[in-house]
Structures are given as structure tokens and as C-alpha cells.
């Protein structure tokens, strides 16, 4: 894979874009491709494409972000065709963009150990709320990024995140016997 001189000059730009946007793109691709391994592969393809394109530095930051999402989306589609479809598609899971991503048994066990109580509480959230909370804490995303990943409006994500946290907090208080509040 040949790199042009142009791309070589762009590498710090790509590094900056990676630092800023890779977590949200990764979360999105994880969602689209159904596995962290496939998501990583596609993420690499996206940023290698960013390195190889000569036009990225001529774009505004807004256009650069839009370019990254466009390429990620298309490469995600491709990866999706490569992997998931062949194993059959649980349409109802894809439906609301709420698929509970593949979590290994060890991961689940560790999480359980970390907080049995919270686990029970999280199960009481709606799937969409749980997904938003997961994107916030497991991927470190902010509302605008969660909105992009879930295909929702930022305002809607803010509301549902606040609602989910307030709901958890209320349960938490109750369990702790802090009912005087």
C-alpha cells in the first residue's frame, strides 16, 4: 500500500481525528458489525483510507467528520454483509438499534461481581436506555456521539440518559434505605 507524500504530511491530522472520533466510530461499527473484532478491522480500514486520501486536509473539520462517518458507514455495511448476514439476521434485534452486544461470559461475570445490585437495576431499564448508558460508560461517549451511534437526536439521547440515571438513582436510594429524600 503506497502512501503519497501528501498523505505523509497528513498523518498528524489523521492522528488527531483518530483521537477525537475513534471511540464513537468504534461504538457505531461495533453495533453495525456485531463484533469488536470486525469493528476494529473496519475502523482500521476507515483510517487507513483517511491516510490514503489526498483530499482530507482540504476539507473543513465538519467535512472531515462527515467524511469519516460516511466511509465508516459504508465500510460497516460491507463488513456487515461479509459477516452477520451469513449467520442469519435476527431482524427483531437489529430493529431498534438496541442489540445487546456480544458480551463474553467472563465479561458478564466480572461485571456482575462489580455490582450485583446495579446489574439487577440495569435490567429494569428499557433496552434503549440501557444501550445509551452502556455507550456512555463503556465507550465514554457524550450525548451527541451517542446520538450519532444510535441514530437518534441529541436532545432525545440527553432526555433518555437523564431519565435512566434518575431511575437508577431512585432505585439505588431505595435499596440504601435513603427513603427520606
Amino acid at each position: 500500500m503506497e502512501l503519497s507524500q501528501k498523505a505523509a504530511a497528513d498523518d498528524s491530522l489523521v492522528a488527531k481525528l483518530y483521537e477525537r472520533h475513534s471511540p464513537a466510530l468504534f461504538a457505531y461499527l461495533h453495533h453495525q458489525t456485531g463484533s469488536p473484532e470486525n469493528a476494529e478491522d473496519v475502523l482500521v480500514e476507515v483510517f487507513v483510507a483517511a491516510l490514503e486520501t489526498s483530499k482530507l486536509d482540504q476539507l473543513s473539520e465538519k467535512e472531515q467528520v462527515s467524511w469519516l462517518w460516511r466511509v465508516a458507514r459504508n465500510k460497516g455495511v460491507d463488513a456487515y454483509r461479509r459477516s452477520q448476514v451469513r449467520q442469519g439476521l435476527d431482524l427483531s434485534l437489529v430493529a431498534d438499534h438496541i442489540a445487546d452486544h456480544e458480551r463474553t461470559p467472563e465479561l458478564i461475570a466480572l461485571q456482575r461481581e462489580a455490582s450485583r445490585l446495579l446489574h439487577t437495576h440495569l435490567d429494569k431499564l428499557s433496552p434503549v436506555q440501557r444501550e445509551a448508558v452502556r455507550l456512555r460508560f463503556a465507550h465514554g461517549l457524550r450525548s451527541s456521539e451517542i446520538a450519532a451511534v444510535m441514530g437518534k437526536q441529541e436532545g432525545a439521547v440527553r432526555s433518555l440518559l437523564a431519565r435512566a440515571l434518575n431511575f437508577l438513582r431512585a432505585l439505588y436510594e431505595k435499596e440504601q434505605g435513603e427513603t427520606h429524600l
Partner: protein
Amino acid sequence: MTQNRDFFKAESVDEQVDQFSLSFLDEPGTNQAQTETRRVKEFSTQDQIEHRQNASMRLVKELQAYYQVEHQQNLGILEHAWGRIAAHLPANHASAQVQNTFLSSPLLRSSQARIRTMQSQPSTDHSTGRKISRSVSLLAATLVAALLVGMLVAVLALGHNHQSNTVAAGKTVTPTATPLPVGSVVYTRSLHTGTNVYPFIAWSPDSKRIATVVFNQQSQKAQLQIWDATTGGHLLTVPLADNLAGDELLWSPTGKYLVLGNLLTQAIIDSQTGSIVNTLTFTTTTVSSTSVTSQSLLSSRIPSGGGFGFYSVAWTPDGSSLAVAVSSLSRGIVELINPLTSAVQATFSTPAYRIGIAMAFSSDGQYLAVSYPNDSKIVVWNVSTQAIAFQQDDYQAETIAWQPSTHHLARALVFPAETQVWDISSQKLLKTYAGVTAFTWSPDGKELAAYTSFIGGPGQPNAKTNEVVIIEAASGVQVALYQSQHRSIYTVSWSPDGRYIATAEASSAGNQIVVWIA
């Protein structure tokens, strides 16, 4: 829970979580705690603040602890991915710089630091402009998408007003077709719980049979099912070998064969008996070991990371040959193959594009179009000369289809959400249907059945996933609307005689295929 007890506010939820996240990281940082107390003063009296804050802080801490393993795993993947990307840099100076951000700091902290830099702090941060422009860009993208959806809604509303007239006019074309109104469900074929439908439905060319592939999650087995298209009665079940579960299923225009396959294998199946009459195999010997992704320990399996194999297939309109888009290391080609002997009859080459995701012949067989979305190209060949007749740059289309009986090529984009129709002979844009991200032509080419691409994504925040809109191609006006009782529609397939449409639909109760009057 009453409103005034809600500690987390929609407008500041990010910042509130950040506050507690940071205090968690810096504990027992008393300064942080004081800052928080100041910030939340407006909410309530001091006593309540402390209680609420304690509960909220505990919650955020618990959530962080709960997701920490997953978070670290994710950061580890990002770091690993950057290592792979950096391998493509001529010098590694930039990689070192970024890698340090991930490696040198504690994982949680690095993520929080990243989050912090995204907050706009006008008084201290000189690069606020860029950061704002980042959120503005997201906002703008959302607004544009909302606008497009809005336009579609407007078109629909307009269409609805004119619906009775237009439908009446449209129906004169096929007056004897059926007395039932458009959208009337003929039958629903429910699949057993735990059985998934593949997102494709194939009609036989005489419109008498329908084929699809279903996948049983418990047995992990796929089977080809063929049933009577008008009654839904079962005709044939073919258990499929594991290597045959497919990406695509197409009925040959002669009606005799089906092609079913995936990246590595394409099987030609006799549609009456279900027996496999020929198999095309992608030979991995043509795949060099210097895959782009070969550095990854996580992705050593060919072809999932490499982009090799059969990416799309299409029958020639006379059914004599099968076109196969073959992707390899350096570029993609299209081979025209005798389906029964596997003999290559012709080869179509691209300059450098690799993965042809969608392929279609014009109905007269003169042109072949292939979309290479990862290279943003659509290539149209003249079939008889194998020369490139037309090429479109900057179009990342997942769906392309020729308007029947014309040389007009329609392509659907999800971002931005629109479908455009181009006249390939004059190389001119004829029509744009805003908001349409997936579609299928009516067999007479006069209408399109438009729906929401099941791939979705950031471009379509509010798109309806349970509707099919029939659009009159010439005017762009909605002439009919089908609303599913189920949550989502994934595939829409028009019967070759134009009378019915089959949709693959999903609900919480399971998946089904619905056939309704077109």
C-alpha cells in the same frame, strides 16, 4: 419519581456525569467535591444537595466500575487498531504521539481527559471554535437528515391528498388485476420463534413461487424454503450445508435455477428439486497472504477482514449467464460465468476498485452496473464490448437498480438519504427522491416501492421502518402507502407480474414474510 427529585437534567447530563467521574478519579479530592457543591447549589437546599450528590456520585462510580472491564477492553481495541493504522504511516512519529495518549495514562483517565477536551469552555479554551464546529457539524448533520425526512413527510402528505385520484389513474393500467386495495395483506407466513429470515426474498419469474432462506438459531442450520406465492402453501424445504448459508438469493430469469451463495461459495440450485447442480468456489490460492489486515491477531480469518470473494451476483436478463463480482487483493473484477459449467465467458475490469457490493443488468442486457461504495464509484460497462460506458464518482450506493425497459439507473444512498435516477445514455441526472434510502422498481418501471434501508445509521434519525411508500416514478408523488403492523420492514420484493409485494418484517413476536397487494 416527581420532577423536582430528578437530579440528572437532560440539558446538563453529560457535564453532571463528568463531574462525578472526575471526582471518582481524583478521590479523595476535596477540591473537586467543593466545586461540585457550588455547581449544584441551585438545585436544592444544602442538606438535600449532599444526599443527592452522594447518591448520584455513588451511582456514577458504580456504573463506571460496572462497565470498567468493557471500557478497558474497548480502549485496548482502539489502541490496538491505532497500532495497525500507524503501520501505514511512512514514519512512526505521529503514531507514537497518539499512542502515548492511550498508553501512558490510566485508561479511565485518558477517556475522561478526551471527554473533557470536548467540552466547550469559552473563557479558557482557545480552540473552542473547532470544538463548537464539531458539535455544530453533528447538529448540522442531524438537521439536514431531519430536513430530508421532513421533505419526505411533506411529499407523503402531498401524495396522500392526491392519493385517491392518482390511485384511480394508476389502476386503469391494470384494471383486471384485483378488486382489493393496495396494501391489503394476502397472507402472512410466520417463522418459528428463534428463526431468522435472511434479508432477501426471491420471486420466481412467473410470480408463482417465492424462495427465501431461514436460519434456525438453536440448530444453527439454514434452509432454503420455497412456497406457493399466492396461497403461502409450503412447497419445498432444502437443508443447506454450513458453507452455503448465503448473502444473496436470486431466481434465474428462466425460472429453472436459483443462485444462493456467500463470499466463498455460490451454488446453483434446481428450483424444482432443490438439488445443487453446480458450485462456484472462490479459490483462496488467488488470495495473497499479504492481506491489509494480516497484522491483526483478531482478524486472521479470511475473508472477514480481507475483502476477498464474491461480493455480488446477478443473472443476465436472458438467464444464460451469471455475473459475479470477484474481489481480490488489488482490484475487483466482474466475471460472466456459465452457471452450469463455471466457464468464464467474459471479464469486466475496473481501474482499481475492489468491492462491488451491488450489481445490476439493464433489462435489455446492454449495460452492467456495479457499485463500489468503498471507493465511491459506480461503474457501468457495455456488456458486449466489456468497455466502461459510464462512471460516477463520489457515489457510495448500496442499492442500484435499472428502471425496467430503460437505460436509467437508480441508486440509493443512506447518507444523505436520497435516491437519484441517472440517464446513462445522456449521462444526466433525471430525478431525485429525497428521503428514499432503499427501493425496488415495479416491473413496469412506472413506480418505485420505497422503504427505509435496514442498515440505518446516523443519516436517518427519524425514518419510519414499518412503511413502504409506492411512488409514481415520473411525478415523484406517493400513490399508495403500506403500513405494517410489525415493527420493521427489511426487504421489499415486487412480484414479476407487478401484482404483489412481499416484505420481510420483524416484530417482538418474531419474523415473518407478508405478501400484499401492490
